[in-house]
């Protein structure tokens, strides 16, 4: 029994607690340096060499916060919190809420903390002034403990509740730790990239201690539902100075369960959605490299060739013609041709193409979409907003199947059409006039049981520390005594903390209330 008590006292010891806190801090430092956490063994070998990597691995320096020693220490801290609270709190409670002798005793009067003043004010006036003083110091009520003709005893108290701060804070810590361990052991977190219009019903877990998706195929987590990204879009700042600066990004998602649509939501940065215990975050985005939408312009190539021939004829004539009258006429014709070509393009029919479409229909001819991409020259440049889009279509004509590229840049598009389309007998030049990239939406998905305990625990901790530190338990015992027309004031202040400033404020302020010029302390 005695032995147990000793262990108990040891575990609840403040010095041990402080030791734990400092050690925990030092271990946290180990996990927050340049040694990146949660990498694979191979990465450490590459960065630091074989031997250092071995040390890192053996000492868990690659994953300090999930190491056995870190977790053990947290358990020990939790234990110390519980034991010290049980050991200490009853006494603290009693000293605040237990019985207090409210009358200043002779012994207290002799204490070195006692302050003594003498004022020429009569007793009743001095009493009033002292009441005023105590009210101004934040005491809500002043008790007259005993009142005789020439003697009055006062007692005032405030902030008893401050003493509960330690208990409340420690309870909060325990609640929080329970929540944190639940999250740590049963929580999962990962990500998935879903292209617009597609479904996914699984995500890739992050490597432990890292925010990178795991490479291990076992770390693919099946969801009890499927997510479809209907649409993804970017929001931009409405600002002249910062045109094109991205303000936010959004996905319209659908949750499907057992083949049925159950929920439709928009997730944005800073605005996740919850479903079935999982939380779905808008984390990143990117381009798939596909064309989501394109507006195609269809030009009658024979008409265009005809027009081009006329233009070049007139141009030639313009260069050789000397007669100013005829020159004027030629210029007029040229203008007319220019207008005609503008009309040819502006009135050419437009057709829409959407990602996934199998055919493009041009004046009754069905062109099969073979392929499409945002940048056929260098697909990597797409993420820097450099595009060279192409849609490759194929058709059969005169028993021959051939491909035609649909391009955006006329300088490339026209010769290409000439070679692949017109040469094979297809009459319509198709070009990309406008297009939009297809995005994928990067979603983070996590499930952390115990999150509510985290909030509850931490709110309790904040309340507890505020209780402990923003309120002060204070008491004053006062005796007023009338002697030879003067009033003697004996005051014993007690302050659980900030004693110095409390004493100081009494020493500087009380004489003013009592009308004493020179601070007279006996």
């Amino acid at each position: 029994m005695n032995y147990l008590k000793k262990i108990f006292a040891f575990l609840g010891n403040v010095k041990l607690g402080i030791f734990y806190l400092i050690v925990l801090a030092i271990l946290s430092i180990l996990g927050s340096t340049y040694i990146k956490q949660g990498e694979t063994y191979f990465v450490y070998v590459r960065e630091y060499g074989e031997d250092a990597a071995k040390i890192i691995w053996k000492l868990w320096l690659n994953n300090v916060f999930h190491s056995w020693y870190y977790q053990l220490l947290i358990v020990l801290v939790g234990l110390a919190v519980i034991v010290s609270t049980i050991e200490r709190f009853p006494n603290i409670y009693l000293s605040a809420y237990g019985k207090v002798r409210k009358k200043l005793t002779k012994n207290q009067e002799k204490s070195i903390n006692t302050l003594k003043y003498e004022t020429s004010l009569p007793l009743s006036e001095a009493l009033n002034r002292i009441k005023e003083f105590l009210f101004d110091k934040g005491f809500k009520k002043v008790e007259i403990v005993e009142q005789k003709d020439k003697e009055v005893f006062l007692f005032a108290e405030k902030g008893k509740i401050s003493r509960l701060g330690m208990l409340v804070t420690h309870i909060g810590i325990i609640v929080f730790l329970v929540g944190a361990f639940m999250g740590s052991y049963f929580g999962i977190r990962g990500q998935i990239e879903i292209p617009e219009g597609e479904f996914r019903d699984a995500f890739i877990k992050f490597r432990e201690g890292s925010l990178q998706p795991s490479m291990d195929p076992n770390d693919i987590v099946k969801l009890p539902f499927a997510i479809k990204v209907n649409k993804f879009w970017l929001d931009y700042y409405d600002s002249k100075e910062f045109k094109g600066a991205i303000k936010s990004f959004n996905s319209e998602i659908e949750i499907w369960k057992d083949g049925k649509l159950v929920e439709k939501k928009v997730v944005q940065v800073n605005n996740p959605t919850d479903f079935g215990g999982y939380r779905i975050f808008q984390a990143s985005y990117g381009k798939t490299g596909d064309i989501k939408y394109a507006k195609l312009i269809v030009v009658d190539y024979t008409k265009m060739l005809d027009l081009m021939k006329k233009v070049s004829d007139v141009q030639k004539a313009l260069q050789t013609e000397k007669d100013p009258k005829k020159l004027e006429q030629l210029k007029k014709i040229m203008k007319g041709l220019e207008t005609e070509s503008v009309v040819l393009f502006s009135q050419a029919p437009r057709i829409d193409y959407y990602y996934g479409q199998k055919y493009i229909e041009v004046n009754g001819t069905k062109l099969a979409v073979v392929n499409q991409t945002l940048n056929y020259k260098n697909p990597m440049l797409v993420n820097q907003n450099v595009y060279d889009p192409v849609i490759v279509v194929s058709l059969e004509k005169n028993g021959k199947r051939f491909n035609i590229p649909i391009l955006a840049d006329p300088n490339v598009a026209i010769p290409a059409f000439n070679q692949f389309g017109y040469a094979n007998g297809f009459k319509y030049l198709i070009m990309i006039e406008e297009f939009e990239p297809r995005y994928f939406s990067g979603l983070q998905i996590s499930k952390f049981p115990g999150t509510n305990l985290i909030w509850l625990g931490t709110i309790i901790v904040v309340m507890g520390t505020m209780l402990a530190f923003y309120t002060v338990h204070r008491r004053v015992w006062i005796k007023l005594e009338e002697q030879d027309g003067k009033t003697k004031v004996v005051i014993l202040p007690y302050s659980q903390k900030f004693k110095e400033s409390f004493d100081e404020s009494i020493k500087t302020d009380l004489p003013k209330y009592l009308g004493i010029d020179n601070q007279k302390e006996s």
Partner: protein
Amino acid sequence: MESTSSVLYRKRPSYLQGALFVLAVLSFIGFVTSAAILSHKFGNVLLFQISGLIYGIAAILYITYFIFKNEKVSKLATLTLFTGWVIQSTAFFIRGIEAYQMGIFHPPWTNLYESLMFFPWLATTVYLYIEREYKTKAIGAFFVPVVAFLVIWGHKFNTDISPLMPALRSYWLYIHVLASFAGYAGFTVAFGASLAYLIKENAEKDVKVKPIYVIGFIVSLALLIPLGYTVLTGAKDIKTMILGIIFIILLLTFLYFATYVLKPLGRALPSRNLLSEITLKAVTISFPIWTASIILGGAWANEAWGSYWSWDPKENWALIVWLFFAAYIHGRTIGKWKGTKASWIVVAGFIMLLICYFGVNLYFPGLHSYATE
């Protein structure tokens, strides 16, 4: 005796004077703000620079007071510091309005420059409160030069207002960052008081200042300046980190020797008990705020980053700071460590705070890396 009841209740005091003063300050801020916005003649950065200059003057006045103990200088020092504070407050308003006019409104505490303005501003607020509460100005001689340095040095960084990245666009930005900086400010005051305590202690004990202390003081100071410059401007690599570790050890060495060498200053400092209590008060005011700031960050992360906690460097260092000050509080209140031990824990905690603020922003890659410029 007119009172027959044995319990007396307080009367409401008058707040008129205080209200008038606040009104006067607010109308000054309002006037300068509208002048800046309407005239387009000056902007927030100029006002920040002016406030830095005024802080510089205030620092000189505080040091003058510390040496010569002239009451007039003391009043002037406080007045100057307060003037700098008011002008800096105005600059924040103007910066906010300017951002709004650009169509990219965000509160003025989102990048390194803004935080280097905001942190000294809040610290000054806390300091002015403590100066009033404890009626002691000696700490100002240590504190105000640091404020002046930070505000002036901050102008080395990009002062432009730029749009926020999407993840930062949240109402949590207001409270989380505000709470963090309030914590930074309070812990900084605690550090100042602790250092003063250590100096005072050596002064009261009248320890002998051995030549080795003076040499150590001079050598570490001489090394600190170039090393500090290298670390603060260096590349974000492992070499800089190792230099950073050396810098921190050197800083501790310097502070250790400083507590001896600066012994003569001890006479001008308030009593040890008072300094110890100022430390406690600053820490205990800041601690719940710091705790709240970590939690608010967690709540934000739970909406933006996929989890309430990601073991991100900033989060870890915030936790480390929390642990250090929790250790201090336990030692100070239950362990009754009023003196040296508690003071050194605060000093160590403050160095952790510096890493949390500068170190993480400048060197550790992580989720909080937007605060680099």
